[in-house]
């Protein structure tokens, strides 16, 4: 049986950040107020941003599944005590 991979604090912190990033990508690209019509000038690279980040998200999901550790992640600029 494959040995569970040991995870040090640094890796855990990095993983927490990347799990946060997955959630951030979901929110900024799929959520939020959307404005329509001729007052909107498309920002040229939003589609590219999506494609580029989707690859990153896929790799994080794979990593999370393989490592199989629970991660409670917080967005780095806001903690629960601040709200």
């Amino acid at each position, binding site marked *: 049986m494959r040995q569970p991979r040991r995870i040090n604090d640094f890796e855990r912190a990095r993983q927490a950040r990347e799990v946060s990033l997955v959630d*951030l990508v*979901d*929110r900024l690209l799929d959520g939020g*107020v959307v404005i329509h019509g001729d007052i*909107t*000038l498309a920002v040229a*690279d939003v589609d590219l941003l999506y494609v580029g980040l989707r690859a990153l998200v896929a790799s994080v999901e794979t990593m999370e599944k393989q490592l199989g550790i629970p991660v409670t992640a917080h*967005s780095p600029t*806001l903690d*629960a005590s601040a709200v």
Partner: protein
Amino acid sequence: MLYLYGITEGFEPPAVPGLRDAPLFAIRERGLAAIVSEHDELELEADEDELWAHEAVVEALMQEGAVLPMRIGSVVADAQAVRGLLRERAAGFWRTLESVRGAVELGVRAAATRPLASQAPAPVAPVPRGPGTTYMLARLSDKAREDEAAGRIHEALRPLARRHTAPTSSVRRGAMRSAYLVDQDRVDAFAARVEELQHALDGVSIPCTGPWPPYSFTQEQA
């Protein structure tokens, strides 16, 4: 052109820099304020720093009061256009601000964490199944475990939330993904409930992120 970060209840924008270090300012109409920065040109890179830069501004706004975050990349020609947007949608923006005031968004996912069939140890004795069958049965069991866990998790967390999104499955692996709008004074209770679930449910990982601005709850309230 003006880059939009969020729509607020009219408070002064905090002293934090916008994208490319541009200063933030407010454009006001009907008591609402759109928080913007001005740019001659602006191309967003496909890079996480851009996302965090937008997010940092919205989080700073969230410290001041209720905010409706914009989707990333929202750009408007000029101040007149922003005022027109606020005027046209004022009633909906106000209702939606009311609905998120005093609450934050928390993200919850759930995924099976046991080794996949492809990584499972080989059986000691021969079994009357081909390797493909064994793999598929294990995969189905992953899926069933995730579905069952997702249901329990959602039922346990829902009572602590003001609103929630319908739990959705990720395309890749059928895992539950949901967002909860939680009163600020219930965030600790929510986090504790997630912790309890994590201990109670074997073989399932439950990452919980936040507090986020209410990105998943900005649909205008009827």
